[in-house]
């Protein structure tokens, strides 16, 4: 990532933390939609701002949790694939090679 990361409120590095930028952007959009929608429906300014704030928090957190969950699943898959690639090279043509057992089973039939 870049050296001088852009940090929201001084703490949240939206450029380098995975899923952070999308969550904040979707949250802002959600906040705008909910707040504006409430204002158009009721013409109450302060209450619309409250709804907008609530919409921001809920949309950001929801998007964040969903994105991080998928990101974690992806990381686990990446690790399994890496391990598999490493083992394939290591075990090729040896007794531990799972492909070798399959081939010999096919051959025996």
């Amino acid at each position, binding site marked *: 990532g870049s050296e001088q990361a852009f940090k929201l*409120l001084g703490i*949240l590095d939206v450029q380098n933390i995975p899923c952070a930028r999308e969550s904040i952007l979707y949250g802002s959009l959600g906040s705008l939609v909910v707040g504006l929608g409430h204002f158009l429906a009721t013409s109450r300014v302060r209450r619309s701002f409250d709804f907008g704030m609530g919409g921001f928090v809920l949309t950001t957190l929801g998007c964040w949790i969903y994105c991080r969950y998928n990101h974690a699943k992806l990381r686990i898959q990446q690790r399994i694939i890496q391990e598999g690639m490493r083992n394939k090279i290591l075990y090729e043509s040896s007794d531990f090679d799972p492909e070798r057992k399959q081939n010999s089973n096919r051959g025996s039939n």
Partner: protein
Amino acid sequence: MAHPLQLGFQDAMSPIMEELLHFHDHTLMIVFMISAMVLYIIMLMMTTKLTYTNTMNAQEVEMIWTILPAIVLITIALPSLRVLYLMDEINNPHLTIKAIGHQWYWTYEYTDYDNLEFDSYMIPTQDLPNGYFRLLEVDHRMMMPMESPIRMLISAEDVLHSWAVPSLGVKTDAVPGRLNQTTFIVTRPGVFYGQCSEICGANHSFMPIVVESLPLQHFENWSTMSS
């Protein structure tokens, strides 16, 4: 290693540190949301025209601001406990290295196969070649094989020290008369810096730790040459 004006963690070089980084991201987002909410409420308080100051019956809002923080705490606690127990998993180390803290240097012992033992002193600034890191470089780095679980046994000879390498997510106190154990795996080759993390006298700031991880072949060559 750390860079100037750094606020966040160093890049993760071990799986545990990666998990810690992810947990930190998760908690930081929650903290950010709470801060945004508090700022918003302060702004509301400063712009309200309401002035009723008598105590009111506020059963509903009391329920909300008790239940909601409890949910937030559970959302933080569950991943935290997961990482905590992950750090304690048994992982069958391939190698045991002992790190002994002295005033003011470290001794590393590799006694699994040969009797390899050496001291690691900081390189003073006047002897530092150009381009090296001030107050961080040592004369003998601790070498280790990459992608192998390593067991570290950490102790001290005189006073309390602490063996810490932030990019590996390791910080273990060196207590005289006690062996503290930590295990880690380094996923990539590289050089990782840390510093003594327990006040131990005049030169506490001047006994750094440098870990260099190598592919196994190179580590074995180094080990054979050194012993």
